[in-house]
């Protein structure tokens, strides 16, 4: 065991954290509202959209993330090349930072998970809450923002936390599109002197620390949000 390498590579792996976090945050920013709205289409049985959401979820859930990455990473550049040619844009698709493909894959993937999370969480808030909000003169948007979403979030938060942690771990698959994230950076460092055990141990630690921190933040937030549930006279 090369301890100097172990320590040095730990920081190499750590330098990949921002990329993993950016992908996670962007994906969540897209998936949370989109998943919520598509979940609503399923609950309110909006004709075409609910069917779309249903098929979408089963397609994404039924395929491994790595395959989704392969598909996006191989098909989107082809699509872009023909688009660039058609509109005479002078840009080489192979210069595009792979992080853009990561945004696409992980947003698509997380949206499907959010649809299912919100679908069950929205079901736990009784219809009477919405009716009461209407009856005191709130508009639809006000009722959702002030009454429904805060209650849905409390129920959904533990599952959103799990999904977020899974998402962070899934960004490790980004190495398949040569994304400079945690796993790839450590692996590249290991290639030089074949110190794979140390490198993998570092990767292991970085993900563990990162995910534990995220879980801690979620726990705190959940506690604050669910104050009204645990309150007792």
């Amino acid at each position, binding site marked *: 065991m090369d301890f100097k390498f172990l320590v040095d590579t730990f920081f190499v792996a750590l330098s990949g954290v921002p990329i993993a976090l950016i992908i996670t945050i962007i994906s969540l920013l897209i998936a949370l509202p989109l998943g919520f709205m598509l979940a609503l289409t399923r609950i309110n049985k909006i004709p075409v959209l609910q069917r779309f959401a249903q098929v979408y979820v089963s397609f994404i859930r039924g395929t491994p993330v790595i395959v989704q990455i392969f598909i996006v990473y191989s098909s989107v550049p082809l699509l872009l090349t023909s688009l660039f040619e058609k509109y005479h844009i002078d840009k080489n698709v192979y210069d595009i930072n792979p992080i853009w493909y990561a945004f696409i894959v992980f947003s698509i993937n997380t949206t499907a998970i959010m649809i299912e999370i919100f679908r069950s969480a929205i079901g736990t808030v*009784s219809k*009477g*809450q919405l*009716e*009461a*909000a*209407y*009856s*005191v*003169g*709130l*508009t639809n948007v*006000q009722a959702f923002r*002030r*009454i429904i979403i*805060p*209650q849905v979030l*409390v129920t959904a938060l533990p599952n959103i936390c799990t999904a977020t942690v899974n998402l962070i771990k899934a960004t490790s698959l980004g190495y398949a599109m040569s994304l400079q994230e945690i796993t790839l950076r450590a692996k590249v460092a290991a290639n030089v002197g074949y110190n794979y055990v140390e490198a993998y141990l570092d990767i292991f630690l970085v993900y563990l620390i990162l995910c534990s921190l995220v879980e801690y933040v979620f726990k705190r937030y959940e506690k604050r949000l669910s*104050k*009204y*549930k645990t*309150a*007792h*006279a």
Partner: protein
Amino acid sequence: MLEIKNIHKSFGPNEILKGVDLKIEKGDVVVILGPSGSGKTTLLRCINFLEKADQGHANFGDIDVNLNTATKKQIHTIRQKTAFVFQNYNLFHNKTALENVTEGLIIGRKIPKAEANEMGKKALDKVGLSEKYDAYPSELSGGQQQRVGIARAVVLNPDIILFDEPTSALDPELVGEVLSVMKNIAKEGTTMLVVTHEMSFAKDVANKVVFMDGGVIVEEGPPKEIFSKPKEERTKQFLHRVLPEDYIFYI
């Protein structure tokens, strides 16, 4: 002040309301009686657009709306003029008692927060909950929750408050506190349309009793007339079943 004309409402093949007309004057306390499934609750819900009527009109003094084709704006206007007290309270679970009461003022009516809090506290004092401003619904008994529900309606100072079986979900021993709050606000001249099974409330507080059955109004009039000399056979049968014998001298 409120005139409802010819409301029809079906759920699938079941016609719940088969043309109901009702006229309510300012300050009236109107109680709707009737067996389950007679359409009382549905009538109330249609007036507040919680259900969309198949046809019918509502005239609120200055505005007349078609209950089937009302625009979003009209619905919003009507809801600003009315308030609703629900059978199972429907307090906002994520808000304290005071926040429940002020939500409609601050968000719906854009009243400044400090002013709304004053109004909210006064409304909660009125229903005897001065000690519970900061309690969440989960910390309140059923009777207390329903009193917050009534305060939430009263504070909006609406033209009319619609009560949908406000005591039906309560333990029998808690019914009294809610009824006495309702009596108090009735005395203050609040216009109320109440669906209830509490005959004592109908007899003592209402100035008009409406008996519904099978989606139509069978009979209506002052409580004295309805309770002591009902004209329709259906009304007699119903009162006979729900009232203790000694009230019905004529049988």
